[in-house]
């Protein structure tokens, strides 16, 4: 009650100003600390753009070349900074073009607020020009959404949108605002949202559960940690490292968990999942206690659930109660955010080293090295491999670059071979697998963290899905390093066709344009490499460039990514060739 009294006094003393709904939208964004937003203007959002023009010294609007690019840029911004990304579009097609990025942010738990214009409220439901029911359409792919038809509702709804997007398990929120609500004037004041009564973003961590987890871990002979993005979103990197080091537990990561603990850390045993490392996949089915931290047992991680870690006791540290027992039955569930839970866990853990258990990981790594890694990194054949490009980037960046990948073979190679020595360095579309994500996401990442080296790595397929964002890079002078690993194929689909469809390469070969010319058309420095002897020098030139740089590397056309767990198979059935 006391806090409420204080709050209401604050409210009453706060000055109000009579402004339009559209000005209020911009003022709300500034109040929420938004410095950059990505979008595309159009009829129903024009009043807001008019205000963005007036406030351009306070908030920078980036005109992308497609609304999908705006969402991915907002995602890249959010993923590298931990802040809420903001995308804006007009009604109708502008709004529907946001959907792919919203769905991507939903499944990858990325905090994002999308603002769409809508036809005036008296026209709602009349099939007006550029009217679409975007609230209806976006419902299944948003954490929350809302249509505003009254100017005076704008501040409270936007405040709620930001709070919901970033709290608990983050996600995308869409706010649809009718044009009359943008035009109408009202008495503006802004108060940040700190609670929604029906919404409990972070469940309380029960100490009894933490104790049960500690007991299991302390008695384990072969414990294995698999961590996910929850560690990064919960800013629990240090806590995870402390737990791993104290208890001496081998720790593997999901694709979105990458970079929370540096690649070079001796207890980091690599990536789990379909194209993950051999040892953590095989040993998932040999560990006695599996400790999942901020991950959701995606099917690309587990393979067949019937044969996944059946021998192990499973501990699940998780912020979202709906994830508990969703895919894998847990023995001990610890609810709460990763940081709090791991902080409670650490003092309860016994010191351990698990030497023999670690040796098993080392032995299996050696097998993977001999059969896969050596050929990828130090090929003896003429054709270039994707992995050697990553190796060169690692050398030039000292493993500090943020790698923004697209979707496909190059993505798996990037995740497998990039050195991630700084957290929030692996920006990629994990859950949705959105081709075209990489290039615009790299723009957002670079603009959010200009001090960091941001390398966009795409295949020739995905690159062409959002290639027009080269225009945004040029206009914004975003110093993104753009690498296209060109095999003239939709490589991952081709790999599956080779392995599971008797090499019937249906619609996977690409007759590609001159990518260098296209980049040069956007006034971006560009270079193409076809031979190994040129590669190191070309990568060095790219990494040294102070501005955007495009590098096309023509790689072996029909290389496959291994190891591989065939779809629906057990993690134990991981193939090395």
């Amino acid at each position: 009650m006391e806090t409420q009294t204080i709050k209401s006094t604050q409210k009453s003393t706060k000055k109000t100003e009579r402004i339009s709904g559209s000005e209020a939208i911009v003022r709300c964004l500034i109040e929420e600390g938004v410095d950059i937003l990505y979008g595309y203007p159009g009829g129903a959002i024009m009043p807001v753009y008019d205000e963005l023009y007036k406030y351009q010294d306070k908030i920078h609007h980036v005109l992308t070349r497609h609304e999908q690019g705006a969402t991915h840029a907002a995602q890249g911004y959010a993923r590298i900074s931990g802040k809420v990304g903001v995308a804006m579009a007009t009604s109708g097609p502008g709004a529907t073009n946001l959907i792919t990025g919203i769905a991507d942010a939903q499944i990858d738990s990325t905090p994002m607020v999308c603002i769409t214009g809508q036809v005036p409220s008296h026209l709602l439901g009349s099939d007006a020009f550029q009217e679409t029911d975007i609230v209806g359409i976006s419902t299944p792919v948003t954490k929350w959404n809302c249509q505003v038809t009254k100017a005076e509702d704008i501040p409270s709804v936007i405040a709620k949108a930001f709070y919901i997007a970033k709290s608990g398990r983050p996600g995308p929120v869409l706010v649809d605002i009718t044009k009359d609500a943008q035009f109408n004037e009202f008495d503006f004041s802004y108060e940040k949202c700190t609670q929604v009564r029906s919404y409990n973003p972070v469940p309380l961590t029960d100490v009894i559960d933490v104790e049960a987890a500690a007991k299991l871990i302390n008695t384990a002979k072969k414990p294995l940690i698999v961590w996910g993005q929850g560690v990064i979103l919960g800013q629990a990197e240090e806590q995870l490292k402390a737990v791993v080091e104290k208890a001496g537990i081998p720790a593997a990561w999901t694709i979105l968990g990458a970079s929370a603990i540096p690649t070079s850390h001796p207890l980091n045993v690599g990536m789990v999942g379909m194209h993950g490392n051999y040892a953590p996949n095989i040993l998932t089915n040999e560990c006695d206690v599996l400790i999942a931290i901020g991950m959701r047992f995606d099917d690309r991680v587990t393979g067949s659930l019937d044969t996944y870690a059946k021998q192990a006791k499973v501990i699940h540290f998780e912020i979202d109660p709906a994830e508990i027992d969703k895919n894998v039955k847990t023995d001990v569930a610890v609810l709460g955010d990763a940081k709090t839970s791991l902080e409670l866990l650490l003092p309860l853990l016994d010191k351990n080293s698990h030497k023999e258990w670690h040796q098993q990981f080392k032995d299996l790594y050696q097998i993977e090295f001999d059969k896969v890694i050596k050929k990828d990194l130090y090929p003896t054949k003429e054709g270039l491999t994707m992995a050697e490009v990553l190796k060169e980037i690692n050398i030039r960046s000292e493993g500090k670059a943020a790698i923004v990948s697209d979707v496909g073979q190059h993505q798996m190679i990037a995740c497998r071979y990039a050195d991630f020595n700084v957290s929030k360095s692996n920006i990629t579309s994990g859950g949705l697998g959105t081709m075209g994500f990489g290039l615009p996401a790299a723009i957002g990442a670079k603009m959010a963290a200009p001090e960091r080296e941001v390398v966009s790595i795409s295949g020739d397929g995905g690159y062409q899905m959002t290639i027009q964002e080269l225009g945004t890079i040029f206009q914004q002078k975003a110093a993104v390093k753009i690498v296209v690993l060109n095999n003239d194929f939709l490589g991952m689909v081709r790999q599956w066709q080779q392995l599971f469809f008797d090499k019937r390469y249906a619609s996977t070969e690409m007759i590609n344009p001159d990518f260098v010319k296209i980049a040069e058309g956007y006034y971006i420095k560009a270079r193409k490499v076809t031979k190994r002897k040129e590669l190191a020098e070309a990568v060095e030139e790219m990494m040294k460039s102070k501005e955007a740089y495009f590098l096309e590397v023509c790689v072996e056309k029909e290389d496959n990514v291994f190891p591989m767990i065939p779809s629906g198979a057990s993690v134990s059935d991981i193939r090395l060739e």
Partner: protein
Amino acid sequence: MSIEDKQLFTVSVYTENNIGLLNRISAIFQRRHINIESLNTSPSEIQGVSKFTIVVNITEVNMKKIIGQIEKQVEVIKAYYHKLDEIIYQIAGLFKIKSELLFEERQIQNIIKESNARIVTVNKVFFVLEKSGKKEEIVTLYNQLSPFGIMQYTRSGLIAVTKEEMKISSLLEAIKNN
């Protein structure tokens, strides 16, 4: 019954009164191809809080997962599921029948009397019967009346209260006083 066997569950969802929420909740069932047997929305015992009562025929394993997905929605306060024997429930059926039959067919009067159905209205053309009870009772009445000819028939969604005390009341009170 094993948790892997399909059975009828009643889902009670306490929510904020929000326009889009029905969509959000029904989408959770739609994604998993679960047919909603019946759905009712109404106010709850707490002012300003709505209650959805949804009946589905699924396994308990899936039921638990779906409750998690429903509770995850921002504007859902709490969701519960119950087996039919854990609740007191009622369904209402309405039957519109030609008025002449009421006087010409003696049997109809007996059926009405024995079924404990209530005559809601009578006019020259038709009369309307209302019967509340379990689904089977309403279906029985339908089967008895249908040989005489039913002009219109409809059945409501299931509404229920639990036998056990629902902690939701105190939870909502706590929220209200917060």
